[in-house]
């Protein structure tokens, strides 16, 4: 049995640092952005076969912590960096972190396809989520309870909706929280009285809600989000330790190029340019 331990120990000691090798760009962070990062990486590596791009998720916080520790070159974040986080980076690298917004995410509310309601005001949404409105009848729909879904509090979307729609108030206790956009979309597509939110997503059986502002009903379309007309859009960020150079710059330029921004649309987000 002891002979089994020896090779294990040898491998253990031989393992060399993986991060920060030449010709490698490492990206870490927000789970909402992992797919986007991966698609960029895929397309980029096809064009530049000598440069390797490595993408991992874990969450915005994980990415920003890794940026500070030097284990990643780019931190993907679906929220703006908090002051405490940027202070730590500044203290360690003697320079403020660099922020690049690389895509826009339109937070979309979905209902079941068969729901006659097609637009809600920001205020109605807020009242539903804090628990003041509980039936569809109160917002012009059928006489049925609203089954509302939210995201887990670990998600950037949750924080965004809480700040922008709920004005910082807490979600009502009856609001169900699901661990991802797909889970929300899936649940909404199966239940005709449901309401949920998340990033732009596609599924049979769901309908995207428009947001009513005065008399206007604004759809979460690419144009409305780019122009800033749709009120519930947020930036998705890359954070760097310093102004990018070399391979890092090539990659970021690629992400912001028309080709890179076309990928953004494919993944379900919206271009910044």
């Amino acid at each position, binding site marked *: 049995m002891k002979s089994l331990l020896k090779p294990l120990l040898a491998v253990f000691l031989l393992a060399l640092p993986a991060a920060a090798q030449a010709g490698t760009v490492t990206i870490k962070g927000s*789970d909402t952005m992992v797919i986007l990062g991966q698609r960029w990486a895929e397309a980029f590596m096809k064009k530049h076969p000598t440069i390797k791009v490595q993408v991992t998720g*874990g*969450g*915005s*916080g*994980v990415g920003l*912590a890794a940026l500070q520790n030097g284990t990643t070159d780019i931190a993907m974040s679906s929220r703006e960096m908090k002051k405490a986080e940027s202070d730590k980076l500044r203290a360690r690298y003697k320079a403020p972190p660099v922020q690049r917004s690389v895509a826009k995410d339109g937070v979309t509310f979905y209902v079941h396809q068969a729901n006659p309601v097609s637009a809600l005001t920001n205020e109605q949404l807020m009242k539903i989520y804090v628990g003041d409105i509980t039936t569809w009848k109160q917002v012009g729909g059928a006489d049925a*309870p609203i*089954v509302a*879904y939210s995201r*887990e*509090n*670990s*998600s950037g979307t*949750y*924080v965004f909706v*809480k700040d922008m729609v709920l004005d*910082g108030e*807490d*979600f009502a*206790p*009856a*609001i*169900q*929280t*699901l*661990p991802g956009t797909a*889970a929300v979309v*899936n*649940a909404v597509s*199966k*239940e005709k*009285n*449901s309401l949920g939110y998340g990033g732009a997503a596609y599924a049979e059986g769901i309908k995207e809600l428009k947001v009513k502002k005065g008399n206007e009903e604004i759809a979460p379309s690419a144009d409305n989000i780019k122009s800033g007309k749709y009120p519930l859009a947020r930036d998705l960020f890359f954070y760097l330790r310093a102004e990018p150079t070399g391979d890092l710059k090539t990659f970021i330029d690629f992400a912001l190029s028309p080709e890179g921004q076309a990928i953004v649309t494919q993944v379900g987000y919206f271009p910044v340019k």
Partner: protein
Amino acid sequence: MEQGLTHSVAAPRLSAAARRRQLREKAVAGFITLMAFTGIAALVLIIVFVAKEALTLFTDADARHEASLSKMFLPQEGRYPFRWQPVSDTPKVSMIPLFVGTLKITLVSMLVAVPMGIFSALFVAEFAPRRLRELLKPVIELLAGIPSVVLGFFALMVLSPMVKSLFHLDRPLNGTLAGLALALAIVPVIFTVSEDALTAVPRSYREASLALGATLWETAWKVVLPAAAPGILAACVLGFGRAIGETMIVLMASGNADLVSWNLGDSARSLSATIAAEMGEVVVGSPHYSLLFFIGVELFIFTFVLNMVASTWTKKVLQRLTGSAS
């Protein structure tokens, strides 16, 4: 261990080679004993290191303010007395919704799994023909081999519409669904341990009962089952422990709303699912982070107590059976 191989014969004079051999034997025995220590060490390290990360809650002034014990367990001012909203301007960290959610889901699963598990164990141990028995036992045990993430997935995709229309519920994801999916995970636990307890009942019990004119069912129900009762109780307690700690099924199927409601059609948020859902994004060292570890400590203590109870009971049934049978 009762085979008594450890009594080595003492020899008066030893050659150098023999002494070396004896030394080597001692070294091997020592090494093996040391290895046996790992189990204890692991258990101790688990509680120590999970508790260590939770300790900040009591030492750090900020954390003590944000998540004091009274905030965790007593009703708070405001619209809702018990909320779990740790990401908020004023974090609300009541454990009550999580306890209620965990218990609700666990009770539903026990309500289904206990009769199912015991009945199928009775069938396999007492009634099934030998052939069928040898087929059924491994097949039911195979259910235990399904990863819980697959059960959660199955609940999400297949069971949820079925359960919703069957019980006329408002929400597709709810305590009942999570409980039923969880029952699938703990039925094999209850089945296996109960079946072992039933088979351990000596044949003479059954023979005596049948000879007195009892039917097969009466023998099984009134003689064998009571004789195996502590073992079956232990099976249920083990199943309960497993249900309390199960994570992925509940995370995917319960809807995770932090409600304080005993309505089975309502959503529920469990302790374990809360850790799994929130740990990913939490800032290391923050009060929220310590809170999640504190939930881990609670889970550890619950299951530890349940396990001790279960193993005491199992010992009791063994003592009783061997004591009165031999």
